[in-house]
């Protein structure tokens, strides 16, 4: 048995959070010796869904990043504690004093899976490709067109208009991307962007080979292991549609060879089925279905295999501020104060999520729980506030839009019950299929919805930008010029302390305005087999805990 787990049992640390910290620390320090390694170094995990694409320019979902981050390596890579971005394909980088020019030095031994060296030109090509409107890369906006010099025109180029298509070559060559020599990649930015190191570490920022794309076709190269030439620690050896994707080490990788010789990513969408496979020993880690939470916690064997990992994901009540009663700030605040987050976290979410009355989750620089006091649960004050703001609550009816997914429905039930009991308003739950919900949200045809945000990267900018006026990621139409001005200034401020204080002020405005009624932070509750050694989890994991750092994992004998 893995000695870190044995040590754990002896310590009997009560708080689960501390346990996770210890496991990570223990694994990180005690390098597994070869003698206790299993013969078969295969890791079997569940990514839940078949990736639509493994082309870095086309990826957009977590289940794609889960594989993409292992096979394609960007310039930088997040550190496990998310404190900074560490060198990856780039050995180092420097930023000009005005903060506008970022120069990345690419490792001389960085190689593609076919043995060719990774060059600055590969990055220029990959990033130009993402900004080519004809590719329609999902995240061309905002990561790339919002930062790179000359890229802001992306929004004005319509790929369906021949006149615009003719302008594309000039647009791409005019971007602030260049490779003065094979080992240098220079990016010029629109404005100083202290958060750009995170953009450079996104899995979709990985390089792409022009000759491969030209040979196999832009739409085809990433669909077969033979043409999917990548530069990460692992490469794809097998695609079995709707079943699994197998990864094996990239023998040309600059950083040496990992212990795991095979990673099998299963595509099992049913969480109960995945859970049964874990119990049968067919998966090495699994997300615990919500309904099984207590069972797992009370099980003498399983309870020792729990990994509890807070995620940078936070949920809130999304008020449509264009409509009564939510066009009134006090009404929004009253709704927020009427929901008992502790009961929500404990009863509905089985103690797996942390209650929140603030916007920035734990694990980020901007985490300031003290700012959330304005939204604290206080049913009596809430009802008085609502009555004072918009009159008799019993005359108010709101529609709560809910996606037709079990977990969402349970949360919807709870919120509706709380609002009806504590405020005396009438809440209609509108439970419909997911696509229709999104369509209505985008068309602003709703009054209340439980929305949320998961970090793309652990920088406050990624969070605060979504509440700016006109943002497409919060549907409620919240707008406050003071908030916009603070965030705009903070986004481009290099001085960390000053930047933080600007974001703090912005967060206070957002909470006091009840732009959203903040509810809870999501945590991952996983089971991991005791023989999985060296698991390094982050608050930014994709589909499985530890999937950013499979390179550190090994399988102990069992």
């Amino acid at each position, binding site marked *: 048995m893995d000695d870190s787990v044995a040590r754990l049992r002896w310590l009997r640390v009560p708080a689960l959070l501390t346990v996770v910290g210890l496991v990570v620390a223990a694994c990180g320090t005690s390098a597994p010796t070869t003698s206790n390694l299993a013969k078969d170094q295969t890791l079997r995990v569940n990514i839940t869904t078949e990736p*639509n694409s493994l082309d870095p320019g086309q990826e957009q979902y977590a289940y794609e990043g889960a594989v993409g981050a292992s096979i394609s390596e960007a310039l930088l890579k997040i550190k496990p504690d998310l404190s900074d971005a560490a060198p990856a394909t780039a050995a180092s980088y420097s930023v000009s004093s005005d903060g506008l020019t970022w120069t990345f030095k690419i490792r001389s031994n960085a190689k593609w899976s076919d043995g060719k060296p990774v060059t600055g030109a590969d990055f220029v090509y990959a990033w130009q490709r993402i900004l080519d409107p*004809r590719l329609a890369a999902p995240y061309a*906006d905002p990561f790339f067109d919002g930062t790179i010099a000359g890229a802001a025109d*992306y929004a004005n180029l319509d790929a369906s208009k021949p006149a615009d298509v003719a302008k594309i070559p000039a647009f791409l060559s005019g971007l602030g991307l260049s490779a003065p020599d094979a080992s240098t990649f220079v990016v010029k930015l629109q404005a100083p962007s202290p958060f750009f190191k995170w953009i450079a570490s996104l899995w979709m920022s990985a390089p792409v080979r022009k000759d491969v794309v030209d040979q196999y076709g832009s739409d085809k190269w990433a669909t077969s292991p033979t043409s999917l030439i990548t530069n990460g620690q692992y490469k794809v050896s097998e695609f079995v549609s709707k079943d699994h994707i197998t990864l094996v080490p990239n023998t040309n990788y600059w950083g040496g060879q990992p212990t795991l010789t095979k990673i099998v990513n299963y595509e099992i969408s049913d969480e109960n089925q995945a859970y049964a496979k874990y*119990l049968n020993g067919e998966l090495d880690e699994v997300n615990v279905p919500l309904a099984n939470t207590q069972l797992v916690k009370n099980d003498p064997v399983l309870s020792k295999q729990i990994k509890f990992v807070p995620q940078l994901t936070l949920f809130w009540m999304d008020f449509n501020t264009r409509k009564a009663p939510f066009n009134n700030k006090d009404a929004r605040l009253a709704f927020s104060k009427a929901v008992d987050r502790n009961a929500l976290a404990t009863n509905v979410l089985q103690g797996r999520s942390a209650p929140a009355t603030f916007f920035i989750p734990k694990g980020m620089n901007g985490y300031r729980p003290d700012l959330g006091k304005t939204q604290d649960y206080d049913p009596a004050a809430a009802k008085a506030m609502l009555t004072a703001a918009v009159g008799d609550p019993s005359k108010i009816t709101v529609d709560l839009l809910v996606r037709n997914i079990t977990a969402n429905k349970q949360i919807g039930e709870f919120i509706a019950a709380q609002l009806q009991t504590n405020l005396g308003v009438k809440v209609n739950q509108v439970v419909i299929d997911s696509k229709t919900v*999104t*369509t209505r949200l985008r068309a602003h045809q709703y009054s209340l919805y439980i929305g*949320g945000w998961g970090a793309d990267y652990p920088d406050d900018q990624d969070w605060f930008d979504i509440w700016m006026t006109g943002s497409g990621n919060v549907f409620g139409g919240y707008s406050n010029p003071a908030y916009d001005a603070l965030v705009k200034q903070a986004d481009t401020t290099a001085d960390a302390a000053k930047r933080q204080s600007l974001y703090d002020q912005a967060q206070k405005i957002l909470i006091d305005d009840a732009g959203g009624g903040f509810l809870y932070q999501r945590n991952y509750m996983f089971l991991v087999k005791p023989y999985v050694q060296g698991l390094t989890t982050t608050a930014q994991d994709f589909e499985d805990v530890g999937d950013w750092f499979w390179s550190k994992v090994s399988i102990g004998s069992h």
Partner: protein
Amino acid sequence: MAVVQGAPPRGALVSFKIPRGRGASLGLYIARRILWLVPVLFFVITITFVLMHLAPGSPWDKEGKQLSAAVVRNLNAKYGLNEPFLAQYVRYLVNVAHFDFGLSYQYEDQPVSSLILRSWPPTAVIGALAFLMIVIFGIGIGVVAALRQNTWVDYAVVGFSTIGASTPAFVLGIILIIIFSVSLYRITGGNFSLPTGGFALDQHLIMPVVTLATLPIAFIARLTRASTLEVLRQDYIRTAWAKGLRERLVVTKHVLKNSLIPVVSALGPTFAVLITGSVIVESVFAIPGIGRAFVIAVSSRDYPMILATTILFSVIVALANLVVDLLYTVIDPRVRLG
């Protein structure tokens, strides 16, 4: 009418081109039925196309992080969704006429035809095996029950049919999983669960095939039993017995041939349903089949995939009905095609 000398007799010319008699009319009949598929498919495509575009939501709508307006516009341009509805419809019809079913929206740029070719074989294999079981066991126990009416054999078959016909596939599938994949895991060694290792013709197919076949077996057994009992009471059967024929001859030559007519008409649609996939069985056993692919395509508004699977299903249903009609002529000489 004057007959030109040297001209071949008309009849000879015609008979040289098309053989006469029963074979010829059968060939014509099949050709005509297959040609009828064209207007049928046209209606199917039209209705599906309209309904699909009426459904709210676009392929680019999703949960979580939203795509920006510029990206959505470029995606629409890439897949031709920016064109007027009618233009899209006409273009699709022209493409389908050339057997081009387009590219999937959900699985970036993969041809729908290759996605279908990948997901249909597992469904078809499981469906065909289940069908085989249904024919053998459904008809078999139905006939036996009728021949031994009011004995324990009959009661057992009727009991099974009643329970089998009222147990939904998801209940049966989950019960089988609980017993064989979870509780008896130590004994069965995981032999009875999917996937791990992809789809193959192995012991993993037992549970899905049994789950898929149980309800139709129950249904076909009841149908066979009822129809056999009715035939057994006919005068010509009494005559056959009176002639002193052996039981085997009476049953195969006289009873089965007549009692199977309603069964065959039920088996046709059953076959079509089986090989177009059961969403429930495929979900319960994680089979990468076309039933699931279809449901996922609908929920993600993958228009080309929805259309192509609907076309495939229509063709299969039409062909299954054609085969049933042809089989009628074999088992019932009174039936005439035309």
